[in-house]
């Protein structure tokens, strides 16, 4: 059922003398929610920035569906079907939901050489996406500035979907949200996976991770120290993996 979408092999990232990532091997599968966990500074954001094309890796390679890829900009990553929702959402509060979803790649028709917006098509498309995500937003013409934090996450997810993203990366999407909104965003995350998208989710909230993730990967000091199926592990084990108290992690760190 789940197919491998992206393989990261032996990824390393050095910032000058600082090694932010080393020897990271990771597989990302379509239809699966993969959670990245780890302490502050473990290298999670650095890793997803490499996936998003925002940083070039110092070492290692990315393979998408069997083909090696090299990203020089976020646009390259987007062209390969990778959409990243950064924590500070890049939405324009003064524009409508539909306009935001299409911003930068509007549907247009040329009349006398002038590109005119296909406003009706865009609205219908966004209406469909919002319904599909069950985002509880009735009016795609509403300005994004009038939406709640969770609804804005939904708009950002729509934007990713509209890109026909095969992989959606979310860096701490629920960090600033209240309980009810968090529920909705988590449900959206599941729905993305159900659509066949690969999802990578970064979170510091372990119970939240158990609610949505199929697989859990733990980073520690720039290395991947553990990978577990969510069904095969529990809250305590994950905490000990993150803090380094787990015997596996200790053994690993001794050999290095």
């Amino acid at each position: 059922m789940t197919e491998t979408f992206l393989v990261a092999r032996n990824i390393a990232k050095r910032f000058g003398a600082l090694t932010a990532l080393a020897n990271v091997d990771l597989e990302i599968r379509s239809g699966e929610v993969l959670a990245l966990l780890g302490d502050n500074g473990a290298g999670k954001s650095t890793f997803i920035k490499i996936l998003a094309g925002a940083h070039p890796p110092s070492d290692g390679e990315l393979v998408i569906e069997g083909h090696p890829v090299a990203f020089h900009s976020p646009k390259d990553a987007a062209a390969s079907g990778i959409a990243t929702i950064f924590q500070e959402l890049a939405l324009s509060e003064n524009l409508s939901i539909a306009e935001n979803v299409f911003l930068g790649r509007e549907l247009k028709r040329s009349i006398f050489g002038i590109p005119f917006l296909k406003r009706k098509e865009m609205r219908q498309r966004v209406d469909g996406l919002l319904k599909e995500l069950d985002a509880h937003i009735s009016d795609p013409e509403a300005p994004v500035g009038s939406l709640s934090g969770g609804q804005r996450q939904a708009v950002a997810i729509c934007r990713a979907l509209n890109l026909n993203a095969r992989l959606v990366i979310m860096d701490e999407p629920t960090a600033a949200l209240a309980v009810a909104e968090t529920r909705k965003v988590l449900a959206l995350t599941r729905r993305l996976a159900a659509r066949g998208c690969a999802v990578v989710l970064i979170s510091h909230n372990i119970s939240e991770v158990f609610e949505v993730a199929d697989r859990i990967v733990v980073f520690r000091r720039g290395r991947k120290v553990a990978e577990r199926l969510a069904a095969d592990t529990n809250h305590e084990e994950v905490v000990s993996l993150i803090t380094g108290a787990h015997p596996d992690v200790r053994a690993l760190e001794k050999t290095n």
Partner: protein
Amino acid sequence: MNAVRQFGNGVFSMNGREWSLLVACLLAIVIFSVASPHYATSGNAATVLRNSVELLLIGLGMTLLLAMGGIDVSIGIVMGLAAIAIGRVLGADGNPALAIIVGPLVGALLGCVTAAVVVLGRVPAIVGTLGLLGVYRTAVFVLLGGQWLSGLPSSLTNLLATTALGVPVPALVIAVAYLAVWLALRRTPYGLHLLAIGNSEEKARLSGIPVIKVRFITFVISGVLTGIAAMFYVATYRNVEMTIGSTLALDAIAAVILGGTSILGGRCSLIGTVLGVLLLRILQNGLLLIGVPSLWQPVVTGVLIIGVLGFEAVSNRFPLAQLRRARA
């Protein structure tokens, strides 16, 4: 409700702010008619409309600039330079066709210069255009050599005083300019990009918008509109004086923010700009007729700017600025 409606903007659809501007215009007309016997004449109405032509054209461009989070305080002198170019061409051979081409051309060229400084040079628009204002002022002085350009041939005046399709040419040109700017703003990707940049340049860039290109083009559009304004200026007065355009930028900025365009960018109203220009010109003309010296006109404009911004600060507490702060 209002906020949502703002996004479905029709060509002439009006919100509360715009209706109140219209009421203010009518109210001013009634008050001045009572106060001065010379006010309510068809001749004076024509004067007010005549005096609004340049400001309407420049105001459309200024609306785009402010909506984008930009500004151009040198725009009045840009019109002066374009007027000098038109005057020279007209004075040389009296050919109005050439004069019509030269205005927008010089405007576009100066728009490119402003864009080069502000957009490519990454100088904040207020600072960059203030610097250019100083340069252009001296350029006007040097070009005119301390003398007025006067007694220009009437060929251009005659051409622009005609009617086309039963409508006076200036009204027709303004209508076409309004429609073109409205279409660009509300019906093309360019308009969305401009408003996104006005909201946040960084977010616009992350969304894949060609920020530099959009900003550059907008300064050029403003320049072209200003060049067309210069054409009407020369046609009307048939002279160019040293102080040409010195209060135009202030008037344009006042009219535009009076019309509901945000000084912080991201939100604008074209119909508001039109009404703002008319209100400003009605007030200036009316005060003159009831005996207030023209010396006081910039005071009226200044007080209007401060009044509008102060009123907005108190009543809305700058909703956009607040949003921005909350999300920063």
